């Protein structure tokens, strides 16, 4: 084990962890916002996330098929794909809420949970069916855009690619917009009011159903954006790809304090960094006894320790007033 090697790769590992963390943060927002207003875990969110990735890849493949991918300026393509992914996932989330959750709003807590798991399975296989009929494919590959793979070497061991920068910039921009939306606008006030007390909010003239739909729309759109960024960054998706990132993002939401928006961002970043550090360093530090396959165990152990000392997550509950 040599120290220069360990220290030399650290900045790169932190950078990669940060990118992964931003993606978890974007997905975690969907879980945490829905939990904030409904106190219910939307387990179909991982599929809402991957639908964004599929819409993105379909558009990019469509552009490529039309020969437009290289002719259009690449930032335009990315913005277009991101917006399409956000719109598709947001609308899907609203539809899912309307069809599968709203009729069960007053049923015992476990029933919408099971409905969510059912929707999750349904969406996975619906995507699979669609893609096998449409493209006869299971794995879909994001078309390579060479400009996105250009790397800037900061030092000999650290570099950052254009697509990583895109992920960071896009994630920061969206988190910023969301922050302003929730804290500085009337709509945001309404969302927070519904989260605090639905009955009181409706007495104040807030249309609770509409606000709940809006919450799903925003959460779904964040998930869709994360899906597109995931596809651009890692390249390969299949109908079942969403499950693991979804689970991790849910964990990130709990880690940050579920129901809490800044908490979801923080939780995502912490989990991403922990995972990257564990995957890169475990085998180096233990001489191969524990390898990269233990990264999740390590990350989740840390999660358990944090929750022992802070059962409500890192940032507790700010949005929800109720205990």
């Amino acid at each position: 084990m040599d120290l220069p090697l360990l220290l030399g790769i650290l900045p790169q590992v932190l950078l990669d962890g940060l990118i992964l963390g931003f993606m978890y943060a974007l997905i975690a927002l969907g879980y945490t916002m829905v939990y904030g207003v409904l106190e219910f875990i939307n387990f179909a969110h991982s599929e809402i996330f991957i639908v964004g990735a599929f819409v993105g890849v379909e558009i990019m493949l469509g552009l490529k098929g039309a020969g437009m991918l290289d002719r259009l300026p690449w930032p335009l393509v990315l913005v277009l794909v991101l917006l399409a992914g956000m719109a598709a996932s947001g609308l899907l989330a609203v539809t899912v809420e309307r069809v599968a959750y709203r009729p069960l709003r007053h049923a015992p807590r476990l029933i919408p949970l099971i409905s969510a798991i059912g929707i999750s399975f349904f969406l996975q296989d619906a995507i699979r069916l669609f893609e096998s009929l449409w493209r006869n494919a299971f794995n879909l590959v994001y078309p390579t855009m060479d400009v996105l793979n250009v790397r800037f070497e900061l030092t000999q061991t650290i570099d950052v690619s254009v697509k990583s920068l895109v992920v960071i910039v896009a994630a920061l921009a969206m988190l910023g917009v969301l922050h302003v939306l929730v804290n500085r606008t009337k709509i945001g006030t309404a969302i927070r009011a519904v989260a605090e007390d639905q009955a009181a909010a409706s007495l104040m003239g807030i249309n609770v159903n509409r606000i709940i739909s809006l919450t799903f729309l925003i959460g779904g759109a964040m998930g869709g954006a994360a899906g597109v960024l995931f596809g651009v960054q890692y390249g390969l998706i299949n109908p079942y790809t969403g499950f693991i990132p979804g689970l991790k993002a849910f964990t990130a939401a709990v880690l940050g304090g579920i129901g809490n928006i800044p908490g979801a961002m923080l939780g995502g970043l912490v989990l991403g960094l922990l995972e990257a550090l564990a995957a890169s360093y475990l085998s180096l530090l233990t001489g191969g006894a524990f390898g990269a396959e233990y990264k999740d165990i390590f990350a989740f152990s840390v999660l358990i320790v944090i929750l022992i000392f802070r059962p409500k997550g890192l940032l507790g509950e700010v949005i929800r007033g109720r205990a």
Partner: protein
Amino acid sequence: MRIPLVIILTLAIVAGGAAVDAQGKGTIKIATQSPLSGGQAALGEGIKLGAQLAVEKFKGPLEKMGFKVEFVPYDDQAKPDVGVSNSKNIIADKDILAIIGHLNSGVAIPSSEVYKEVSLAMISPANTNPTVTDRKYTNVNRVCGRDDVQGVVGSEFAKSLNAKTVYVIHDKTPYGQGVAEFFRDDAKKKGLNVLGFEGTEEKSNFDPIITPIRARNPDLIYFGGIYDQGAPFFKQAREKGVKSKFMGPDGMDSSDLAKIAGKNVVGMYYTSAAGPASALPKAKQFVEDFKKKFGKNPEPYAAEAYDAATVALKAIEAAAKGGKAPSREDVAVAVRKVKLSGITGDIEFDAKGDRKKALYFVLQVDSDDPQKWGDNKIVKQLAIAPPSASKN
């Protein structure tokens, strides 16, 4: 008895009315089991068609003896439970004297437990897992190679590339980890420096694994696993600036590797226990017949299935020398005695049912176009005997 009459009539027609001595000695059936539906159907269909071609071509001598020869394909769906339940039907049909199959070792191993109950000869065209023959069943044979040799072929080739340092990744499955361990152990023996040995179930984000690899800059990276995981790994590694040579086992042998990783895997090496049929010198006729009859190119393992079925027919012929329908035991014993020159080379089995000399290939990815996967170049071809002292 009505059946003999039918056979006489059939044979009379087949033989063009010649006076054939067909007293209706019964039917001999050769079965195949391979996935004919689902994601691996292309390979499974190739096995079925390869065997069918051999049965049609070599059934003459048995028919002259007065037997009716039939070919019965079964679909194991690449699922162990389906394979086993098919096997129960197969052993119940007394006319089936040999089985050609399977595609997947995970299906072949439990199914062969059923064949063993009645000593039904199984000749596998494709199962490379060492366990298939290491159980030393007298009825289980294979015409393809073994993973413990495949890993060694890989490390030998890595050495011949002048690689001094290697990094080994695997997918934690019995197949991927198994072949990666054989690669690693032999690489160490040959004096290569194994910088790391890492398992991962990750399917999308390989960044944290790639960073330490890049810092250590190995000459070669070996990925023991299947293309759907190997392709994104190699793609991300190249895109992150890793300059090492890439290598993998036959799990990488799919056009999807090029589809997913594109130009990033051009020049990558992979080993295989089933070379492209077009590369086998004796298989020219087979490829032509196959194309003519089925209208497509034979998939990997179709030539092996053809040879496996040929072995089965020769063994049945030998066991039926007296003119009587042979028992299953007789056929299983006869298979081990077969010596023939097949389209994949000389075939002869050792005491465990491994081929005395099996063929192994090292291929190199030629193009990022998935359509041109079949044009990948063979850079090395070896005939190697199975290891004498293997595990279990």
